[in-house]
Structures are given as structure tokens and as C-alpha cells.
């Protein structure tokens, strides 16, 4: 930012933070180090995903159980890989929200316990801000328009005056939710992720099926599209096995076609609202974060759009796109260095916590 100085000073000594994330079906832990020269290094970043059988989603209760079961092992592995002990840490960062209640609570409990055991300050972190800060750190994007797309969130965000302002968002379900639920309908595996399997399936699709296209200004809507694409599985041209019944059976719709059409339609909507936000604020950079951001077709489409506008797209791979502990450590440590701490009595978590409620003290 020209004309304004960045409030965050380089640290006088190296800082270490542990980040714990578990707002959805992944439990993640990571250790980050901020050095005196202002650089950052990721010491470890480990995650375990709760995978349900095909056709099923993850329930809050079972997901919380999964996190409880894995938390200690992952944290131990994470510290061992980073070669640090709990005593070396400056703070423990955990996801305050938004996310599913039960999994959030189980992780907050772990964070509080560790904080009391080792007498370390706690920092509650907004999950979305964690994604944005990690994306900025990894890609080096300065002041991008951020497209945050995941299983629970779909937002177009731009920074302005110490706040990540939401320019556009979904009016109903998140894009990842739409993909996950469609994967269940056609019985795709949840391993490693339903979205990944839809992407692979879509590569085999050829036929573009007409689906609703729902953008409203800078907002989008996915629930009607999900209903519509689901309805095609009851169409008499639909072949669940993807094969024609006989040599003359040409006018058919395969699951691959539906995956292809779904991806083409909803990603085009996302790119369109991102482009509108870029035109609106006059930015040339786009940063894609969140689990759906690891989709290569979305990255490709965004790249074409950015190129047409003379801009640039920044994206990260699955290690940092998909929910992880290191992003919580990064955003938490940034605010910790600005003097922010979450006292034990306030170390709650919340399912509803908007991106624009966070005071971004560390940016100019």
C-alpha cells in the first residue's frame, strides 16, 4: 500500500506458533516460524481427513469423534517433524469459526488444554482469514481479489482499510457443498475428496448439459443448479454406468457428462463474479484459496480470464488450499505479533463468524 506503513514490524527474535484446525472433516496441525528478517518458514504441516463411505456425508458428531481420536497423534507428529517442543512455542492458535459446531468445540478443547498445561497464550483465528493469509504468504500476492471457495464458503473478497470486505458470496449453499452432494448422488468416492473425484470424472465428459446459470450482480446461487443436475440422473437418457445399452443408443447422458457440465457451469459463474469484482475495484491480481481452489479446471479458467484482463492468478496446491493447521498458525501469529490474545474465558468457538468481522491489524 503506497503512502501507508505496514503496522507489523519485523520480529526482534524468531517466533513460533502451533496452529490447530478442525472446522470440518479435516484435523490439521502445523508449526510456523516467523524470522527476524520478516520471512516465514513452515516447519511442519500435517493433516488427517475423516473419510466417509461413498454416498454419505460427514456428520458433526462423528467428525468431532474423529478429531478427538486423532488430535494428540497429529500434534505429536507435527512437533516431532518441526523438531520443536511445546515449551518453545510463543502461542497456540486454533480455529474459532466458522465451521461445524461439534468439530470446532473438540479442537478448541484441545487448544485450551494445551494452553493450560504449558502456560501458552491462545489465539482464536477466523478460518477464512487463515486461508487468505496463508495464500498471500505462499504466493506472494500483494493485494489481490480473493476468491475463497470451499465446502462451507464461497466468497469474493478484497482488502480495504484493515478489513477483508466481502464483495460477493453465495446466496444459499457453498460451491464445495454443491459438489460434495452431487458426488453422493452419483456415488463417487469421498477419498481423497469428492471434488477431486468429480474433477477426474469430468475429464471424461464430452456433452455440455444445459443447467441454470445463477449469478446476481456479484453474488451466486448453487442450490437450484444442484437440484437441476440431480434431476438429470432420473432422465431416461441417463446411463448410471456411462455405457450405451446398444450400438444405436447414442443420445445418452453419462455421470461424466454431468460432472463436466456441473464444473463448467459453476466455475464459469465464479470466474464471472471474480472478474466483476476485479473490474469494480481495478485490481489485476486474483488469489484462489479454499479446498475447491485446488481444482485445476477452475485455476485454468481463472488464468484465461486474468490473462484477458492483463492480470495474474495466484493459486496454491492442496497442502495449503485444503484446510490445514499451518494457515491457522500463520494468521494467528500475525495477530499475536500485533498484541492480540484470546483469554481463556473468551476462548469459545462459533459456527457463524464472517470474514469481514475480523480487524486485520497487521496490514496497512
Amino acid at each position, binding site marked *: 500500500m503506497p503512502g501507508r506503513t505496514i503496522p507489523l514490524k519485523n520480529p526482534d527474535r524468531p517466533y513460533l506458533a502451533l496452529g490447530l484446525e478442525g472446522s470440518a472433516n479435516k484435523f490439521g496441525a502445523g508449526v510456523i516460524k516467523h524470522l527476524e528478517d520478516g520471512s516465514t518458514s513452515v516447519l511442519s504441516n500435517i493433516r488427517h481427513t475423516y473419510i466417509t463411505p461413498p454416498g454419505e456425508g460427514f456428520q458433526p458428531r462423528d467428525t468431532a469423534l474423529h478429531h478427538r481420536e486423532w488430535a494428540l497423534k497429529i500434534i505429536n507428529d507435527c512437533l516431532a517433524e518441526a523438531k520443536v517442543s511445546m515449551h518453545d512455542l510463543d502461542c497456540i492458535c486454533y480455529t474459532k469459526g466458522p465451521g461445524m459446531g461439534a468439530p470446532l468445540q473438540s479442537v478448541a478443547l484441545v487448544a485450551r488444554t494445551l494452553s493450560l498445561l504449558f502456560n501458552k497464550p491462545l489465539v482464536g483465528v477466523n478460518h477464512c482469514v487463515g486461508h487468505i493469509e496463508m495464500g498471500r504468504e505462499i504466493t506472494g500476492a500483494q493485494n489481490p481479489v480473493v476468491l475463497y471457495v470451499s465446502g462451507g464458503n464461497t466468497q469474493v473478497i478484497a482488502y480495504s482499510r484493515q478489513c477483508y470486505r466481502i464483495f460477493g*458470496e453465495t446466496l444459499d449453499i*457453498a460451491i464445495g457443498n454443491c459438489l460434495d452432494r452431487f458426488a453422493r448422488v452419483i456415488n463417487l468416492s469421498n477419498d481423497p475428496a469428492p471434488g477431486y473425484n468429480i474433477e477426474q470424472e469430468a475429464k471424461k465428459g464430452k456433452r455440455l448439459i444445459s443447467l441454470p446459470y445463477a449469478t446476481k450482480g456479484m453474488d451466486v446461487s448453487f442450490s437450484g443448479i444442484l437440484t437441476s443436475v440431480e434431476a438429470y440422473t432420473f432422465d431416461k437418457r441417463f446411463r448410471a454406468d456411462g455405457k450405451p445399452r446398444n450400438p444405436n443408443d447414442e443420445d445418452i447422458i453419462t455421470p461424466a457428462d454431468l460432472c463436466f457440465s456441473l464444473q463448467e457451469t459453476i466455475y464459469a459463474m465464479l470466474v464471472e463474479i471474480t472478474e466483476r469484482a476485479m473490474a469494480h475495484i481495478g485490481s489485476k491480481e486474483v488469489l484462489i484459496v479454499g479446498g475447491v481452489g485446488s481444482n485445476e479446471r477452475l485455476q485454468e479458467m481463472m488464468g484465461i480470464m486474468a490473462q484477458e484482463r492483463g492480470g495474474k492468478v495466484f493459486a496454491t496446491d492442496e497442502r495449503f488450499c485444503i484446510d490445514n493447521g499451518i494457515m491457522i498458525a500463520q494468521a494467528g501469529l500475525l495477530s499475536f505479533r500485533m498484541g492480540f490474545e484470546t483469554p481463556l474465558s473468551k476462548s469459545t468457538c462459533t459456527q457463524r463468524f464472517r470474514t469481514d468481522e475480523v480487524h486485520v491489524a497487521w496490514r496497512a
Partner: protein
Amino acid sequence: MASSSLTLISTSTLISQGAEAKVYKAHLTAAPSEPLVLLKHRFHKGYRHPTLDASLTRTRVAGEARALLKCLRSGVNVPGVRMVDAAEGVLGIDWIDGNSVRKLLPGGAGEEDEATSSEDEEPDPVDLLHEYDISVGVLGQLIGQEIAKMHLADVIHGDLTTSNMMLRHPASFKSRHSTLRTELVLIDFGLSYHSSLVEDKAVDLYVLERAFSSTHPDSEPLFASVLKAYELRMGKEWAAIGRRLDDVRLRGRKRSMVG
């Protein structure tokens, strides 16, 4: 096969590029007496599947032209439609000589959308208003009346901002009024649609209110005069819309994201 619309565009001057379209200034024929037109080209988006892109472009161009025609038939001041090439995504409308309302009001001259900001020396809004011989209060009335006329025709603009309203320049406009030398024109119906719902009309007004407060500081009295004129023109339809507008204001953008 090079279409004639594209040939026309290649001989026109590009004036700006938004997110959706490129805007050109052109003559439809070579005759010097031919009035100017504005060409809005929704160019092909490389990132979209060609089939999807073609169908979106077609429906959007046709939709915009349809909304303009509906407004014209109902006596709303909008630019006349001169040509439609839905397949190529080109819409040709009357060229409006004048300024956008955004530039005529305090605060709006600063950050204008992209291309137009190249003109370095922006004239002072107060001087400009003087040129149009119109007071801020009357301007508010004109805005309210025009929106009311549009809503009475069941057209929802979808993107009401002060950038999407223009005043005709007195030098090139023959007014039928003795006191008023200009006319307010609504432009850019790219996001418009047809609806008779109270909800949609109230949201349309709310969008404008937000646009006013975010671009023009201290414009509350002006927006109040817009609403007053709107109320007068809407007659008995106002009561329901006004009530709904109060509801919409409370709603705002405070929803929490869950999903």
C-alpha cells in the same frame, strides 16, 4: 465469415471496457448526418465453454434490448435501440450526449470505472451542474420520477447506481419544458429483468441507496428527494414498496455464512 457487426466494431472507437463488455462509439452508416450510436459488445469469454458462452451472450443481449424496448414503450427515458445482433453479442443504442450523474455529484468524480479515469482534469461537479442549469434537488426529483416510471412498467434495473444515469447536455438537447433544459436517462440494463413483485422493486431502491451512500458522502437529503418523487409518481403502489424497503434495509448484508 466475418459478421457485419464485427466489421462495424473494427471501424469504431473503443471507449471503455467493463467486466462484461467493451463499449464503442460508432456511426451505423457512412452518411455524415447519421447520428452516433453506442455499441456494447459482449465479447467472447475464453474461459467459458463455447456453447455456454454463446447462449449466455445471446440471452443477455436479447434481454437487455427487450428491457429497453419495454421502457421506451412505457415512456421511460432510456436510449433507443438501433441494432441487435444477439449471436455476436452486439447491442447498438443511441449515443447520449451528456454526463453520468455520478460525475455531477460531489464525491463521484474521483474513482470512475477504469477507462474513463484517463481524463486527468475532472471538472468540478458544482460547475458541471451549473452547465446543466439544474439544482441538486431537481436532479433528485428527476431520478425518482424516472425510476418510478420504470417500476410502473414492471422493469427492474438490477444495478441502479449514479454511474448508470445520465443527464443530456443542454447544448444538444431540445427540451419540451420551459424551465428544464435537460433530461435524465437511465442506462445499462445489463442486469435488468421483468418483475411486478414489491420485493424486487424495494431491493432495486435499496441498491441505489447503498450506491448513493458509498459514492457520494452526505447525500442523504438527495436520496430523500429521490424517494419523495418516487413516492408521488408511484401513487398507491408506494405504501407496500416503502414498507418493504424498510424491511430490506434491516436485512442488509448481515447474513451469516452457513452451508
